[in-house]
Every structure is written in C-alpha cells, then in structure tokens.
C-alpha cells in the first residue's frame, strides 16, 4: 500500500464518511455537519487540550516567580534561561505543551480539507471519485450529492464577504491572547506582540483562499477553545493580564 492509500484508509476516508453521515443526520445541512465534526474532534483531543490548559494555568501561577527571576537575572540571559527552565521543571510544566493540540489537529485539517472538497464534489470528476471513497452505509449514500450552501456561504468556495476571515482572525487572536503569557523583557515583548498578531492575520488571510468549509472548522474550533479556556482556567486569562513593562495607565482623572 502506498502512503496515500494508507492515509485514505486510516484518516481520509473515515473523516469523509463521518462528515457525510453527519450531514444526513442533520437534515442534509453540511455546515452543521462540519460544526458537529469540530465538536467531535475537540472531544477526542480533550486529553491533550486539558494538558495544555494545565500548562497555561501553571504558567499563569508562575508569573510572579518568573518576574522575580527576571529582575534578578535580567542582565544575564543565559542564567535567566537556566533558572526559568529549572522553575518549569520543578513545577512540572512544559512551556511547549500548548503546541501538542495544534500538532494533533494538523492531520485533521488536511483530512477535513480533503473531505470537504471530496464530499461537495464540485466537478463531475470529483463526484465520480467520491463513489470509490464512500462506505456502503445507507446513511452515507442517501446523503449524496450534498448541498454546499450554509447561511451566506458556499462551503466549497472562500467567503466572498470576508466575514468568516474576520471571525477566524478575531477568535484566534482572543484565544491566543488568553493563553500567551506576557513577555517579561522588552526585547521579547515586541516578538510576542508580533506573534500575537501574525497568526490571526495569517489565518484570516488563508480563510480568503481556502474553502469556507475549512474556515468554518477553524472558527468553530477557536470559539470552542475560548469557551473551554474560560471555564477551565476560570476567566479570560492573559486577555486581562498586563505585562509589568507596559506603562500603567494613570489612575483617577
């Protein structure tokens, strides 16, 4: 078996069939099927998300200590890094732990992108190709061909009104802001600020290029992420947090 065949057998075709079956269960609404699949994916990846949220909460709790270290070893970056790593180790926190849920989602993104394009079958060739990928479940075959319309969107095409791009970018910024610890030194702060803007802008831009079905997945996934984050960490996290290097606004007017 080639890599493509293995991929389709393990991930590609199962995601496609689940998506089509969900669409049939949800009155032939493919947009709702994508939303339902997003929730399922978030549930499956919950153990990893929980680990990430634990890391985020621990990092929040460690902020006073990190600031202390910053003040103490601010001029010796090497020592500062060593002490911070020591601190992370003692607290059992992996600062890169937040990356795992994102990495896990990569194959899902690819499979979902393929599934959306294959399921909607915008060309006759794609429709014929779909026949070889569907399981023999009645629920799947009765759903074909799918309706690509959802709200104002054609799920096989990018959103022409940019609304989804704004939602994807905005929700991603909020989610990142909630989890991203403020930089403790001014040099890192500008990098951090750039990162905070870069990812939402990039995904917002990609939303303009990719089928809106995939962007719908991103938007819903971000919103679920924000809600989970809010309830798990008990608030808006770093969204309300201010770096000690940021100027404090004058109190009282």
């Amino acid at each position: 078996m080639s890599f493509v065949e293995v991929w389709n057998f393990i991930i590609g075709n199962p995601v496609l069939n689940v998506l089509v079956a969900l669409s049939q269960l949800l009155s032939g609404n493919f947009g709702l099927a994508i939303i339902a699949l997003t929730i399922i994916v978030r549930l499956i990846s919950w153990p990893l998300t929980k680990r990430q949220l634990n890391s985020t909460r621990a990092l929040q709790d460690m902020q006073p200590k990190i600031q202390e270290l910053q003040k103490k070893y601010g001029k010796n970056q090497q020592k500062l890094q060593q002490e911070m790593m020591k601190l992370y180790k003692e607290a059992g926190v992996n600062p890169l732990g937040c990356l795992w849920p994102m990495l896990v989602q990569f194959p899902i993104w690819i499979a979902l992108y393929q599934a959306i394009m294959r399921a909607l079958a915008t060309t006759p060739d794609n429709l014929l190709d779909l026949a070889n990928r569907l399981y023999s479940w009645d629920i799947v075959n009765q759903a074909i061909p799918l309706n690509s319309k959802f709200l104002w969107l054609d799920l096989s095409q990018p959103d022409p009104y940019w609304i989804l791009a704004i939602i994807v970018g905005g929700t991603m910024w909020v989610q990142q802001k909630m989890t991203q610890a403020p930089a403790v030194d001014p040099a890192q702060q500008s990098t951090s600020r750039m990162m905070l803007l870069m990812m939402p802008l990039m995904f917002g831009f990609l939303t303009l290029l990719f089928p809106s079905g995939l962007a719908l997945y991103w938007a819903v996934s971000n919103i679920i992420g924000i809600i989970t984050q809010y309830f798990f960490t008990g608030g808006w996290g770093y969204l309300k947090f201010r770096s000690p290097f940021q100027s404090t606004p004058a109190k009282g007017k």
Partner: protein
Amino acid sequence: MFLVIIALLPLTLVSCVPGGAQVARGWSGTAVHDGIIYVCTVDGRVVAINSSTENLEWSYSTTPVTTPSSGLSCGQASVTTAIYSIPVVDRDIVYIGTYSGQVLALNMLARSQDLTFPQRSYGEWEWDCPIDNAKSNAIVADLLVSADTIYVSSSNGRVYSLDKEFGDLNWESKVLDEKHRKLWTSPAIQGDVLYASTYDGHIYALSAATGELLDWSFASEAGFASSPVIYDDVIFLGSFDRYLYAVKIGSNISVWKFPPEKPAGNWFWASPIVNEGIVYAGCLDGKLYAIDAETGEELWQFESKDQRGKPAPIVSSPVLVGNLLIIANEAGNVYVINPETGDGERIENRENGDKPTIDAQIIASLCAHEGLVYIRGEDNRLYAVDINERKVSWDFPLAIEE
C-alpha cells in the same frame, strides 16, 4: 516564528495533497458519422479522425478558460476547457457542449477543407452559445438533438432549448433543482415531452415546445445519478442510493427498483440500455446486470475486474455490437458478453496478456460502428477495438505533437 512555520507547513501540505483539487478533465465519448470518428480530447480539442485511413482530418481547439486561485496557489490560471458531452453529428454539423458553458456547432465539411472560421459569408457557418458565468453554467450532460432543436442541461439547474440551425434560444426552463443546481444528466424525449432527472431525486416532465413544467413529476428519496432512458413508457435510471429505478410515466410509484432487497455495491452511474425487454445496467460495483424490464427480475450478472482480480467500476454505458454486449471498466478492460447467458470474455492487451485491454482508465462512453468499438482512454489516445477479432485493432494519439 516557530509557530508560524509549523502552521504554514500543514497548510502547504493541504494545498499539495491529492484530493483537494477541483479537477475537471472531461470524459467525452466518441461519435462516428460517415466513416469519421469525432472525439474530444483531454486538452479541450475536438478531433476528427478518418476510420479507414486512421489519419487526422481536422482538429479544433476550444477557447481556454480562466480559473480562480485555490488554496495557497496564487493568481489565476488559464486552463483548457473540459468537455464531458459526447459530440453529436447531425448532417454536416458536429455539436459539442463544453464545461465553460458553450454549445459549439462546427461545420465538418468546411473544417476538412481547412478553411478559417467563422465562415458565415461563404455559406459555411458555426456558432456558439456563450453564457455569462461560465463556471455556474457548465455543460456536463450529453446534448439531446432532435429534428430542429438542441436541448441542453446546464449546471445552473435549467434546461435550454436552442434552434439547431442558428443557435437562437427557444426557451429556458425554470431551475429544476434549487438545492444542488447541477443538471449533469441529459433529458430524454418522448413525443413532445422532455423528461429530466435531478440530483434532488425528481423526474420532471417538460413541454418540448415551451419548456413549461407539465403536471406529472416523480419524487424519490435519493438523487438520480444517471440520465433517464425511456422504453415502453417506462423511465429507467440509476440512483445514488445504489438502486436502479423503473418509473412508469404518469405514475407516482416506481414499477420496481433493482436489486429488490439489498442495494447494489455502488451507484448506477451510467445510463442503462434497454433491448428486447431486457435492461442492461452497468454499476460502479464492477457488475453488469441484466434485468427483465417488466418485472425487475435479475436474469444474470457479470462481474468485471482489474488486473488484481478485484471488481473495477463500470463508468460508461454498455453498447450492442450485433448480438453482443460490450462493456468497459475503469481499469481499462473491455469485455464481450453474450446477452442471453451473461458469459463474458475479456479482450486481451496487444502486447501483454496480463495487462488490461488498454493501458489506461476507461471513463468515456463507448461508440460502436461496423464491428469496431471506439474508446477514448484517459491517456488521451483513441482505441479501436475489433469485436470479431477480439483485439485492439489500432490506436491514435490525441495529444498535440510539439
């Protein structure tokens, strides 16, 4: 920056991995008229080949279309026009529907004389019927040509009636399938009524003269995958729910559906053919079924295979050559079948008996003429298969030679 890189990586992959692209290659079949074979190529040309001399008579390139960017691929691209409909020859004119939404009428006499086009001033002519938004008006279904009219199913969900001589619009129907819009199956005509099937599971009756919807329609739970075929006031057509339906015109209940109990292994994608009370239906599960047209009873089934011994989808309709049935499967195998018994024989590859009959996938419709079956392979070659000799007689490269 690390995050940006790891985010970009899968998205780049997403654009590159197979399956994401919206491919429209076209799978137009062949037509034969007066010893000339007409076939549309993968690169959007209409080609005429002399069946006796096996030489190219003429070639016409359709206008390339501009496609928008997709995924991470930036900018627009100019691509050849895909052609799905079979060329239809009527007197001296070859009619073709294109994926860019045009109906072309090419005068083959003038083409063979290598004259420039259009040729209205010389009494020779051709016309096309461009529609504004090419993508949404793509023509996928075969054209239906009657005495003085061409009926065209469009991807905007409408059926059009065009004057056969000048291409003027006679009428356009209302949108038949609001949900999907795609009308990728061609209508069938009986008397002065057109019957059109839709992906939302309806058969509609339209007045051939005005395009108005008539009183009768038929509704099914699943969409219809194949074009309707009429025989003895019964419409036969395949469905996405993996059944073949027989629907009596005027009735709201199907006469029968096949198989009677469990559905078939896949869709009945190709239109069935009906001969002497027997329906021959190719299925994407790799089987050809012979069914009693009246009762829906299975008479026999024949399973076509690929070179690994697995069933291979039958995408194109079977054809009759004399008293023999000919089918081709996607794996490239061509079979000669006895329609009475269902016994089949695979035609072997010319060079290697272990290989498929032709070294390419077969998706396009077959065309039979004087004991030969003409097949356009997905390798962009035309193959002539001699049924009596049970061999590939000759083949012709359809790609442009640099």
